[in-house]
């Protein structure tokens, strides 16, 4: 199987859509890469793939090589700067037009998930992150089955479960936690995304979708709570336009002083030069994810040693 040279597989799951699975996957990947690990992302959201857009590589196509498909590279490893390589595979790279609908029934989706797991030439990877669509259906069942059948012992580290704080979201995410229990997937922990928004004008933090719901849920299900991630429109701008994040003086995110790094001019949306991973370093969410990633890495190592 093409996953043979992958050290750890981490799934990113959520029962609810639009809570930020893909954005969390992206940031986990960037953060792991900044920690010097080689990372791959497999996007199995077949009808709504977001990973190509988030990395700004929508026009890339998958290339065929002897023995399988080559993933699309985001950046190469840079040992001098301590940055690991990053590459992605998504159905988005197989579409002719970006707006094309993929109208597929379950069996076709199952076949595609299987093919993604068996035919992609990842090469040596420290981490493979698997981004999933919302729900507990065909893609998830197939993924769980395939990994159970084909993954090496200790290879599948478990799942990072993403939620937003409102009860409407946690209600669905609780279903996903039960799915993990039933299918024997280890839950590494819960991330609460969109937890608060810091007004760029007055730095007042408002809990738009409430706050704390994810933490309470994690406690209820006795799983680890990995942290709260606030909404940062600068991150949205970074991935949407490639603009370097800018913060007004006095902005604090999760206790970190962001300081001023330039004139805050929201009118420009020019793409700044440089790699996404470099620009992400100055995003307010980078330290937040550094902390989350550390916990994920510790859990993954512990799991790998335990088996």
């Amino acid at each position: 199987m093409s996953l043979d040279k992958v050290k750890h597989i981490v799934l990113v799951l959520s029962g609810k859509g639009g809570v930020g699975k893909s954005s969390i996957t992206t940031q986990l990947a960037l953060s792991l890469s900044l920690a010097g690990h080689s990372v791959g992302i497999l996007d199995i959201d077949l009808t709504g793939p977001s990973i190509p857009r988030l990395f700004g590589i929508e026009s890339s196509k998958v290339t065929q090589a002897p023995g399988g498909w080559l993933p699309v590279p985001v950046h190469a490893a840079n040992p001098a700067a301590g940055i690991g390589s990053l590459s992605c595979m998504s159905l988005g790279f197989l579409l002719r037009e970006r707006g094309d609908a993929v109208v597929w029934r379950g069996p076709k989706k199952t076949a595609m998930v299987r093919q993604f797991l068996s035919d992609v030439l990842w090469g040596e990877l420290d981490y493979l992150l698997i981004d999933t669509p919302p729900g507990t259906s065909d893609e998830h069942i197939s993924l769980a089955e395939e990994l159970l059948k084909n993954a090496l012992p200790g290879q599948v580290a478990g799942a990072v479960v993403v939620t937003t704080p409102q009860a409407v979201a946690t209600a669905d995410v609780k279903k996903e936690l039960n799915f993990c229990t039933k299918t024997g997937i280890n839950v590494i922990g819960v991330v609460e995304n969109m937890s608060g928004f810091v007004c760029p004008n007055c730095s007042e933090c408002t809990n738009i979708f409430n706050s704390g719901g994810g933490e309470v849920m994690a406690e209820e299900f006795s799983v680890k709570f990995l942290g709260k991630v606030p909404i940062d429109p600068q991150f949205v701008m970074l991935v949407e336009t490639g603009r370097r994040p800018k913060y007004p003086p006095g902005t604090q995110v999760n206790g970190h002083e962001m300081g001023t790094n330039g004139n805050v001019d929201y009118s420009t949306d020019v793409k700044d030069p440089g790699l996404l991973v470099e620009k992400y370093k100055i995003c307010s969410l980078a330290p937040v994810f550094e902390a989350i990633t550390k916990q994920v890495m510790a859990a993954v190592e512990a799991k790998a040693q335990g088996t």
Partner: protein
Amino acid sequence: MAPSLEAPEPVEDVLSNPLKSAPKLVAPEPEHCPGPESETAGKADSCAGCPNQAICASAPKGPDPDIPAITARLSGIKHKVLILSGKGGVGKSTFTTLLAHAFATNPDSTVGIMDTDICGPSIPKMMGVEEETIHVSGAGWSPVWVLENLGVMSVQFMLPNRNDAVIWRGPKKNGLIKQFLKDVEWGEMDFLLVDTPPGTSDEHLSVNSFLKESGVDGAVMVTTPQEVALLDVRKEIDFCRKAGIKVLGIVENMSGFVCPKCTHQSEIFQATTGGGRALAKEMNIPFLGAVPLDPRIGMACDYGESFFDAWPDSPACTALRGVVRRVGEEMGLKPETVLPED
């Protein structure tokens, strides 16, 4: 196999026969196979001599025999509206409940909501009826009535425990949606709103094919302003075009946020490519309006209250009323019958 999506399964066939599953084959499909699910399966020239020929030829073909029963069951419903979005978490269910509450403010209208999100049903919680169960009578399953003129049906009502995961593959989900349409006693209704999960897959295909005969007024697309969401909504519009579903228009949800402290308006999900308005223009479909992000909408949903009743004077409420009227207009209804002015 080279990476390609040149479908062995033509989209038209998938759209017209969403419930058909592939017959079990005894040998790999040969070259020039018409596809074991196609109309010509077992009969094409290339089928001669194939060990699967008899299996393919005898597999059931043609339209679903239950469709006339569904059409009869739904004959008392005047208007059917789908709420769609390719993207999850943009507010499909929230908008569905708000639309239902708005339609139900007219005491002469009866409104139903069918929640076809099998793996992540949100409607019962938002309607405050999470703990209810379905009652079965001789005439069929009774919807759960939230108000005298507002009924709801969802898979959530069938779960023994509220947090149970529904780990089902496509065909089973399709079967339940069929039951919701065939076995639920909807009765005489003015509006049936169909809430859907994100994506363009089994649930959407089956809803479309089951409702085609009885007629759908159209679909309301819900989006948020950022391109990551619009990208998936584009796919959903493409799906509607292929399936022949009329798009009534696009609603942009979570559009701007007013800081409660300094009243500065921030674009949390920035419309870097022009948002829902630009997409509507590009796709040549009506733009129904933009609803600002108001934390109280989320709170009202968590507590199962009607946002319209709880905060009638908020800007979000005013915007929503405008959107509801526009939806009515696009359906060919008079705004004052849809949502009477106070």
